[in-house]
């Protein structure tokens, strides 16, 4: 934090922005008691004071923003700054210590080097289920995992092979590095990789764009999280006859799902540690579980199976 302060002063010294000066003079005054207030407490009842930042995956950012709103309403002296940036940014920023919470939709082990992992704490806050979607005009309703694999490896290219009306299968992919894509490929491709010659018709940046493009492109297929499946122009497929629902993920029948992680640091500065801890606890609380479901995610509480970083599923 002191490095942070120094650079602020350096900036003032260098540029002398008067507006900023006035702002900072006031804010320096207000931080001191805030820092003192949080020190040595953490007991229930005492008011939480402090501000933390949380960056990273955008897939469950709306959910975290909802949590932030409720959390700040309950703790008026707390502020949580939420920014996007993607899982990679979130993980590297929490590893560097420039944010208190780094959101990721993959295990940190998949993105970070071993030395960066040191001191990171994995807080799994909820679960996201995902499944294949197709353009609403596609007359196929069920797909086997083998067929899905064939499509995304470029081996199956016509809907006729799946029992539908003949027509080219237009594969819309998420961009390389996307957590959704990593989860989907881990569950469906089983370690195989598409040949170099395989070209999707688009590689897009977000689930929202996937929905738009699948709805607009005849014969297209892609995959999104459950909360994006209720949209016009697309339809969700059942996989091996199993519906993509919360219950089926909890029971372990539906296998394409992943944890949403909020990584924190073990050695977090004590002026913010209490706020960070309280915020994560709030995300996991029973009170918030209803919001988690509303937003299309699955609370941690009811899971009957669990996954480890290598993708092995075991009974919880």
């Amino acid at each position, binding site marked *: 934090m002191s490095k942070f302060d120094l650079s602020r002063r350096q900036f003032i010294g260098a540029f002398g922005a008067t507006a900023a000066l006035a702002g900072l003079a006031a804010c320096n005054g207000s931080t001191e008691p805030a820092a003192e207030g949080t020190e040595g407490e953490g007991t229930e009842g005492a008011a939480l004071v402090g501000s933390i930042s949380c960056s990273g995956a955008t897939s469950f950012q709306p959910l975290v923003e909802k949590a932030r709103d409720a959390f700040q309403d309950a703790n008026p002296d707390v502020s949580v700054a939420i920014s996007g940036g993607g899982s990679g940014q979130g993980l590297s920023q929490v590893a560097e210590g*420039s944010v208190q919470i780094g959101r990721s939709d993959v295990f940190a082990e998949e993105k970070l080097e071993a030395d960066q992992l040191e001191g990171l704490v994995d807080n799994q806050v909820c679960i996201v289920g995902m499944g294949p979607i197709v353009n609403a005009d596609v007359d196929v309703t069920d797909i086997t995992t083998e067929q899905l694999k064939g499509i995304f490896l470029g081996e199956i290219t016509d809907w006729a092979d799946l029992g539908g009306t003949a027509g080219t299968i237009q594969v819309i992919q998420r961009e390389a590095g996307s957590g959704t894509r990593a989860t989907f490929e881990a569950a469906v491709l089983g370690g195989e990789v598409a040949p170099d010659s395989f070209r999707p018709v688009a590689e897009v940046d977000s*689930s929202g764009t996937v929905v738009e493009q699948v709805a607009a492109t005849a014969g297209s297929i892609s995959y999104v999280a459950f909360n994006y499946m209720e949209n016009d122009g697309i339809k969700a497929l059942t996989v091996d006859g199993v519906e993509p629902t919360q219950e089926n993920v909890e029971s372990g029948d539906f296998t394409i799902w992943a944890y949403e992680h909020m990584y924190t640091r073990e050695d977090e500065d004590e002026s913010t540690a209490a706020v960070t801890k309280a915020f994560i606890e709030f995300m996991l609380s029973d009170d918030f579980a209803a919001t988690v479901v509303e937003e299309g995610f699955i609370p941690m509480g009811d899971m009957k199976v669990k996954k480890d970083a290598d993708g092995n599923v075991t009974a919880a």
Partner: protein
Amino acid sequence: MASEKNARSVALDAHVRRIDSQDKVATGVLAVIVGLVMLLVVAIIAYILVRGAGRALTPGFLTNPYNDEVVPGILYQLWDSFYMLLVTLVISVPISLGAAIFLVEYAPDNWVTSAAKTAIETLSSLPSIVVGMFGSLFFVVTLGWGISILAGACALTMFNIPILVRTIQQALEDVPRSQRDAALAMGLTRWETTINVLLPAAMPAIVTGIVLSAGRVFGEAAALIFTAGSAPARLNFTSVNFLSPTNPFNIFRPACSLAVYIWRLTSEPTAGSTEIVWGTATVLLACVLLFNLLARLLGKLLSRRLTAE
């Protein structure tokens, strides 16, 4: 003999007719091209307005936060855009002014000056994403400012400086030689001449240049995504804690400008976001056009006042 002459004049006539018609055809084709270009400009602006004006004029669109349940608005993005612009100008105007004065008045004719000129030229041709990625490492990580308005404003400054330096330089050079000579002859130093004579005389052009550059900065997005962030900020206009990420004046909080908001909504669309995109695009376009108009008006007004004195 006569027939030969006749034939020659017929050939010449034909040649004249040919080049005349060639001239007419060329002029006609060029006129069509110009017509099409103007049609294109009108079509583009009209299309944006038609698609977005309805949303932009909806009561509440300009004054509601993005998460309003009835009419999601762009209040925070508007604020962030203008505030970031202000911070950018506060940083970039003094630097550009100094640099331009140096180049016009002091610059020795040697490699230092030509290196400085090359540096500014380089800056002007850098792709915005390169400035953005540099900012995301240098301002955000190395200087430790985090994803913040300040980091974003510094990235924008890097765009603004070459434009500003060039316009200010031009404005100073356009001041009549006689004024400068008269001041120097009266025993004023170059510094005094610059401050008391050149700057006031060049002021209308400088102000116009600043406002015009503000229009460009206002619409920039690529350099901001990784420096000021792309998540819509949540602001609290009653906040007095200047360190709070919800305080609108805090320059160390993330921010999302109108342009970045448009990019984010198109790359992460949600239900109904297309309407917001067009509405925001209309507002952004209107702001930029207003900047252009303002620049012209200010320039005229200031020069009239100055010449009246």
